[in-house]
């Protein structure tokens, strides 16, 4: 982190840090395919406030991206289907809105950044045109105004020589620069919330660092909410405020970032942290979580993680654990900490 978040809200008084923005309640999503019904999201709850970064951590099949796509309303339906739940944006349930109302929120209030910037940009239109399009469509700006705003945006995401490069096409930019353009696009209408789905996975480490820093700086500037979806424990540790760990379509643990890394309260989180090699020390044999990632067509009974868990008991094989409030040894509640494990006490304190 290069700069500490400044709390000046000069000109940006729209968003007050801490204002609740989005709340996902008990969301269920499934896919009907010819192989059966895949239960991708099985009761997810999370919330994010202005100025806050929520990291949703999970592997393939954890439902992290499906949840995000459902929030954005860009999930393919069919085969996807929301079977239950609410998505409240500033208190209003987006799932009950008309398509027209949702379209107004999309891009303007909630924007998304994708992993693959090259395929998200139209190759036959110049970058400036694509950035300016947002203003022409949503704000009825003229061509000239749109272009000026496009240059301003490119400046804001620190693209060097923006005025000269505004007419270049996406393939003329490097991977890191393209991801900056995607970020500029997401920022264009100054949304309240940005959802970034694996924004740096396709980038090299040195470029990754640049892009994550940029996101953090912009967030400090605008106080928007940020949902960062990733599988990378390292990226999360660098930028997130709080973390929701997902497994087989459920949240298995939520915690403030420091607590999660220091003292995980779910065996899956604990296993993940132990299984990644460290840069700053040469370890012995790695701890490996046994077995395979969950099969969504056949989620195990009870806790979905039980076949891979070292401490699973008979209870874990029959009863789905609720998301318990985590307490310390004296029984005092730990703020923001929850764990969906029958044995969270043993995991946390043992």
């Amino acid at each position: 982190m290069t700069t500490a978040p400044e709390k000046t809200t000069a000109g940006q008084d729209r968003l007050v840090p801490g204002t609740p923005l989005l709340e996902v309640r008990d969301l269920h999503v499934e896919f009907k395919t010819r192989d059966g019904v895949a239960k991708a999201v099985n009761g997810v709850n999370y919330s994010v406030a202005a100025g806050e970064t929520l990291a949703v951590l999970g592997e393939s099949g954890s439902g992290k991206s499906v949840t995000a796509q459902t929030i954005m309303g860009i999930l393919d339906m069919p085969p996807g289907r929301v079977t239950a739940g609410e998505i409240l944006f500033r208190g209003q349930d987006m799932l009950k809105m008309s398509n027209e109302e949702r379209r107004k929120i999309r891009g303007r209030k909630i924007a998304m950044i994708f992993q693959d910037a090259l395929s998200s940009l139209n190759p036959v239109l110049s970058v400036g045109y694509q950035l300016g399009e947002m203003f022409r469509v949503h704000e009825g700006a003229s061509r000239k105004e749109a272009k000026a705003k496009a240059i301003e945006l490119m400046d804001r995401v620190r693209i060097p020589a923006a005025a000269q490069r505004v007419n270049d096409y996406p393939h003329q930019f490097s991977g890191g620069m393209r991801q900056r353009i995607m970020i500029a696009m997401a920022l264009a209408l100054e949304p309240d919330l940005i959802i970034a789905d694996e924004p740096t996975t396709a980038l090299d480490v040195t470029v990754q660092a640049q892009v994550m820093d940029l996101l953090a700086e912009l967030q400090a500037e605008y106080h928007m909410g940020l949902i960062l979806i990733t599988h990378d424990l390292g990226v999360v540790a660098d930028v997130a405020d709080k973390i929701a760990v997902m497994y087989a379509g459920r949240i298995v643990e939520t915690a403030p970032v420091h607590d999660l890394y220091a003292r995980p309260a779910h065996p899956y989180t604990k296993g993940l942290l132990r299984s990644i090699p460290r840069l700053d020390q040469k370890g012995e044999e790695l701890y490996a979580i046994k077995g395979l990632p969950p099969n969504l067509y056949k989620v195990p009974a009870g806790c979905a993680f039980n076949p891979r868990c070292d401490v699973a008991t008979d209870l874990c094989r029959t009863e789905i654990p609720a998301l318990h409030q985590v307490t310390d040894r004296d029984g005092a509640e730990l703020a923001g900490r929850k764990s969906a494990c029958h044995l969270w006490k043993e995991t946390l304190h043992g």
Partner: protein
Amino acid sequence: MAEPILEVRDLVKHYPLTQGVLFKKQVGAVKAVDGVSFTLAKGETLGIVGESGCGKSTLAKVLMNLERATAGQVLYKGEDISRLSGAALKAVRRNIQMVFQDPYTSLNPRMTVGDIIGEPFEIHPEVAPKGDRRKAVQDLLDVVGLNPEYINRYPHQFSGGQRQRIGIARGLALKPEIIICDEPVSALDVSVQAQVINLLEQLQGEFELSYMFIAHDLSIVRHISDRVGVMYLGRMVEIGTDAEIYEHATHPYTQALLSAVPVPDPTGREGRERIILSGDIPSPANPPSGCRFRTRCWKAEERCATEVPLLAAPTLLTGDARHDSACHFAAEREVAAA
């Protein structure tokens, strides 16, 4: 050090850039690998790290003879294998095998697992007599931790981690001495990566394998490697033991790379000083003169633009800092403090 099993000398791979449809004229070359030298000792793991476009995957292809080297030598037990073809090349292939990055595209979807792992025996019938092949394939499945009964299944019936095990079994079939692993775990889920890495380490002990482990993930490379080479834009910029590279890096690029790696430890994030490099990697078709890293380097001076720094141990440095580094101003710097 143990005797080198593989020695690479001044290896060069250029891809010509041509213009014109009918009468092609060479107008330049992409210098994917441009003068790389290193050795691999028996039973050792050499990690190669670098960002996309640094030439590490091309290096693997040239070592595997899947691409012809433009210049330089690849000595396997003293014999140059980079110019071999026909039966001589086929014989060498028995000793050098490869594990691929993408377990989804590296297995033929129309063949059963038995056929995939058994194919090396069909190509090299001298390795396993016909009657024993099925048994040999089942043994290999067992070695890589898969149920031998899965022999008649097709690749799409397996998950990513299991497929990578199948790819490893295929690489092991001919009992090679060297296995080149090109990003073998980067396509896998985090929880499965550790399983595959442990398997690779276990197999190394069991079969006395030498590994060349190519990856962009510095943490994994440190975990598995005895020595590590860092590549930038077709050149090796620094090479040494894992401690020399990770704790006493002297090349500015290595230092920047290490400082940029996100560490899964939020308490470290305030204390760590990061070097954020400006700009992008220049095009390998038109690399900078002199030191290739100079365009992004904070130490660059005039000398760097004119004089190519050699990969050698700086005489001024002592201890672990004294290892091969291609920088005129090689010096240690405190990075990645735990």
